[in-house]
């Protein structure tokens, strides 16, 4: 009887630890495969022929079509720069400086990766339609109520996900030196 209890505990523990840790790593990554830069996370090996198993599993689970990091970088954020969860009830300001890429954009999604319907039919801003302010920054306001300037409507009752895409960013060598990540946009929380 004692051995049976030990075996059941062993089986339960193995399954919970094995499946739980796999789920956690595929969902959230860890520094080696999905480094964070401020609030932004990128699966650096996505789309690569030599992608690690965690990245391959992540791509398959997500249903994404990635571009390898030499040709495009995708950063995802679900928090502001201080690590607080992005929610549709609050206002945020995204402060960017022109990024080193042929083209880049910041788009807003719900937690399932779908666009958030809004009357303005506005879901993203990119390097070609964002104006540079006199201080050299490009600013996007994110929130449920209309704001002057570049406003991204966040709707209501959604957990938010911001996606920053860079097409043709810096070289791999420069990326490894961290140059591509130096000036990623900050996400500052405003009123709720």
């Amino acid at each position: 009887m004692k051995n049976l209890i030990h075996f059941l505990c062993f089986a339960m523990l193995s399954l919970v630890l094995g499946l739980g840790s796999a789920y956690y790593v595929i969902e959230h990554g860890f520094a080696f495969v999905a480094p964070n830069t401020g609030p932004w996370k990128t699966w650096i090996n996505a789309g690569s022929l030599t992608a690690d198993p965690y990245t391959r599993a992540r791509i398959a689970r997500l249903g994404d079509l990635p571009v390898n990091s030499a040709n495009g970088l995708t950063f995802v954020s679900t928090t502001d720069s201080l690590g607080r969860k992005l929610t549709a009830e609050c206002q945020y300001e995204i402060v960017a400086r022109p990024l080193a890429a042929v083209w880049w954009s910041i788009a807003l999604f719900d937690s399932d990766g779908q666009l958030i319907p809004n009357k303005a039919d506005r879901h993203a801003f990119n390097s070609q339609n964002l104006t540079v302010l006199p201080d050299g920054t490009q600013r996007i306001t994110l929130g449920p109520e209309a704001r002057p300037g570049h406003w991204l409507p966040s709707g209501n009752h959604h957990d938010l996900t911001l996606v920053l895409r860079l097409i043709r960013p810096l070289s791999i060598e420069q990326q490894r030196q961290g140059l591509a990540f130096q000036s990623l946009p900050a996400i500052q929380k405003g009123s709720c």
Partner: protein
Amino acid sequence: MRAFWPWLLASVFCAGVIHALTVFGVPFLATRDAWSRLSALSEANQLYLLPIAAPDAPLPFMAPDIAYAFCRFDLTTRNVTLQTELGDASWSIAVSGRYGENFYFMSGAEAKRRELRLLLVPRARLSEETSTERSEEGDEQIIVISPHMTGIVVIRAPVRGPSFADDTVRLLQSAKCQPAIEQDPNLLAAEEAKPEPNVPAVIRGGTKRPARSPRTQVQ
């Protein structure tokens, strides 16, 4: 309690095995990966345009300011050609296996020409068959060796703004993905007898329809 230590160590070891099996197995067991989702909407060796900034997009996190065209290629019986124009430096074409690994990428910034013609050839057939493909473009054709028999070609065309969407879609519509034409007289005759060219179809709300006019492509 002491008798449980071996069980605890064994469970940690087994958890490691389960962890590894799960991580390695997910790509092969996933039923909602990009290939599966696009297979439900498309046929092989045909180019499809996805609507720009559509609600309920077939793939998650699709950029709302990029026009996407994709072709699921199948090289089992024939090589496949892909012809497209690269509208500007930010356009790109990526060829990847069904698990998303890119084995060819070209952007407008590095292409030496505006028009691109790719011939996708499986590695196994490379030596004997590429010389028999009919190509009016001659040396302009780029041979892409595919390590897999199936995969996905994705053309990404960033849209400067809503007023540029129609032009971008129109240009994407001129792209073609189709089986390569061999120098077999019977096949050539069959190809020439086809009444309809290989026109990209447009996917809307989970169904596929033939393309009409570019203006109707964007929702």
